[in-house]
């Protein structure tokens, strides 16, 4: 199950990298917000892997805390930088 999770996370990571490259080519985004987006996506993917691992281990509290400490900040970062990029592109 953990191997399947890593497989899916790997596909998502590759897809995210492709999306970021396309985004930077299309809208000429500066490397700083681009790095911020990458970090946000990395945090969310890390959160998925952490939470699934914790759930499989039988410690759902660790899975939930993983969402709080890794997933939530990743979403916040993605949202803030995404809005900045959207504004600067307009």
């Amino acid at each position, binding site marked *: *199950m*953990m191997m399947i999770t890593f497989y899916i996370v790997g596909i998502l990571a590759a897809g995210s990298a492709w999306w970021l490259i396309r985004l930077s080519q299309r809208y000429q985004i500066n490397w700083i917000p681009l790095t911020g987006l990458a970090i946000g996506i990395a945090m969310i993917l890390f959160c998925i*892997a*952490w939470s699934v*691992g*914790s759930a*499989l*281990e*039988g*410690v*759902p*509290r*660790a899975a939930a*805390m*993983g969402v709080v400490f890794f997933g939530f900040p990743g979403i916040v970062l993605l949202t803030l930088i995404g809005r900045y990029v959207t504004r600067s592109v307009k």
Partner: protein
Amino acid sequence: MNKKTNQSRRNFFKLGIAGAGIAVAAAGGAFVFNRMEGKEHDDMPNPIDKKLFKPFEQKNAVTMRAGGGFDPELHKMLQGFEKQPYRNVPGYTQLDRALVEGGWSTSNYMAPMQAYGQPNSGALSWEQHHLHDTQYKFGSKQEATAAIKHAALLYGALRAGICRNDPRFNYREMYDIKREKSMTWDDFPFKPKTVIVVVCEMNYECMATAPAWTESGTVAMAYSDLVKTTYSLSVFLQSLGYQAVPSVNGEGINPAYAIMAGLGEGARNGAVIIPEYGCRVRIGKVYTDFDFVEYDKPRSYGVMSFCRHCKKCAMSCPSQAISMDDEPGYHPTWSKNPDDWFKNQIGIYKFYSNSEKCFRFWIQNDGDCGICIASCPYNKPAFWHHRLVDASNVIAPGPVHTIMREFDTLFGYGHVNDPAKVKRWWKYGPPKGKLYGSKA
């Protein structure tokens, strides 16, 4: 200078920065992996004060004081141990007691009283019954070392290490409870040169039920595994023509030998923390006169630094037997009276526990406790995110370890005295197949 040249210079600069970043990341990764392998030492990593230090008398160990009768009060308490009536509480029922008795059965049958430190008992006999006349000659020390370690793993060891026999960590005098007589190393059948140290795992889910009787099931099973493993390894060596004596709790101090064999590092609670398992292991050894081996070196893994700041085992201990000192020392601080210090092997720089307080809780609990092992942040099953935390631990500075301890609790780990864990154990048991499991 035209725009095109500037652009290419800028790109070259960016490429250089990116390359340097990758190199730094790779170097950092290599550094962390190297630190996780442990820093090698030529001798015991813990400093020794030669004025205070001397080999320990086995009679002073709490298990021998109780089992051998040297402390009448402890001996009397021991007679009622694991004999209290069943309780209507998860973890303290006939089912849980049966798990313990089943676990002890092999050890009790093959080597009676070895848990108290009884030397020369049953399968752990000093007799060389299987000694062959011809000695097998290995082609190289590397070949011999590999053969011994692979045999140990086959016989059930989780890990194996090899170190020299060290009189500092052998009992100065041993005591034979059954025959009621002291024994010295002059009585030992040969002059040991090498000690092969093995560790056997205790089950994570079962240990998590601490301090319920259920936890004692995995402790007992690990002792039985050690008796079997060390006995088999000693027969292996004797069949090669070399003298060998298996030992679990007798003859010498297991944590010291495990450290000398490079298997782990000493912890605050007096046990040995080994990478990936914490102190959720039990230690056994085989003394032999075979010395054509590559000896392992003691290693430190940042455990002492973590233990300084963590103190989770000490805070969790129900009898406050574990030291809450900020810094280790050369003698116990649980008593200001030096006449009490005979109960510990003093003169080595470590945290000193009050083993008698610990033992008294066992009596009250009617089962060995295990809370310090279960609560330790190093005690984790084989999941990737724990290895990531282990890796970050080797590079984190001291005060960060206090934060890591708090996060360990916040994330739901190390919680003990929980009947739900007993119910979970009986419902799901140990992990099945490759869901997750131990690996050497």
